[in-house]
């Protein structure tokens, strides 16, 4: 793949990481912080994937496999985080 093909996605990914970081710090709601954290994760995956697509001879399966693993782990972490957020709200939702 030529740089002009993958570079837009690599640049896009850096913007996603920055946006997610900003949301994680400034959003007061736990639900939205979890969403922002997911965005950082997907930005990192996209950066990794775009860079690994930069080779000339075909696509590299190793990063792809690692990213799929990452997506599944991100989902399970999100499910746990959302469960904790709901439990936190049930207990009154105040900071300890």
């Amino acid at each position, binding site marked *: *793949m030529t740089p*002009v*093909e*993958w570079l*837009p*996605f690599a*640049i*896009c*990914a*850096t913007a996603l*990481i*920055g*946006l997610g970081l*900003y*949301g994680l*710090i*400034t959003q*007061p*709601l736990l*639900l*939205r912080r979890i*969403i*922002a954290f*997911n*965005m950082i994760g*997907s930005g990192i*995956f*996209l950066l990794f*994937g775009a860079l*690994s697509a930069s*080779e000339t*001879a*075909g*696509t*590299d*399966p*190793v990063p*792809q*496999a*690692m*990213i*799929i*693993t990452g*997506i*599944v782990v991100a*989902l*399970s*972490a*999100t*499910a746990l985080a*959302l*469960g*904790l957020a*709901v*439990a936190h*709200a*049930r207990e009154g*939702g*105040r*900071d300890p």
Partner: protein
Amino acid sequence: MSVVFNTLLSVIIVAVAAAVVLGRQAFMAVVFFIAYGLLVALAWLRLEATNVALAEAAIGAGLTGILLLMSWTRLRALQAPAPPRPTRLIRMLAGLGAVAVTLGLLAALIRLPAHPGLQNAVAERLPLTGTENPVTAVLLNFRGWDTLLETLVLLAALLGVWTVTRDEDWPGPAGRRHRVLPDGVLAQFGRVLPPVALVIGAYLIWAGGHQPGGAFQGGTVLAAAWVVAVMTGHLPAPRVDDRWMRAAVLSGPAFFLGVGVTGLSMGTFLWIPPVIATPLLMAIEITLAVAIAATLSMLVFGAPEREETP
């Protein structure tokens, strides 16, 4: 031409991401995040990573979307007090920090040395792995360790979700009761979608052996079929102490671990002999897909919750 498309797609992804992060309402953020996941799946297709695109669409957009929507409903019903917004100074500093991180990554991107990648090494040994899909070969054969530990992470997450159940709710049907109009749109949807999803899920698992697809993508689509059938009221939610469900959850990691230990007796943990690699990999893939479907569904249903207390 593809340059224009890729650039346009990147701009749209960033715009939707900005709507997710900066938008006023939490519900809008959730909806935009689902759209964002589908657009990112499209980006993966453009990067010729079809396996990842399937995983992103099914897991990143689909299941994460359902999870977020269900959690949003629960959180709204609980009416927890909203914490105060951070001060202007903190927001400005956060903005500066985020811009600095993005610029730093861009600077690193330019300086990155060229690298050959591992595709040739994978292609060389692909005939010994028992699959023609190089991504499946990496997931189940070369890097079996990662995948085994990943299924254990899924188990740990499920245990974590279950531990926040209130004592009086344990053990019960997973999640909350869903009320659906018997002749409404959702109920109709629940009749049409699960059979289609079952076929697509089974196909994706089978296809993983030779073309894009695999246990994770197919298992997720199977999970989606189950989740839709339960959410539309056509099936009861499984109880958290249901033996069949627990057996399904444990089957994949247990089988994979068994293969690993058998390999150990022949010299290497998780060694897959090339002679029986094709059927063995298919067996691993099917049991993993069943376990992933069960675990992801249970993660989406959540902890047992009888009726919300006021």
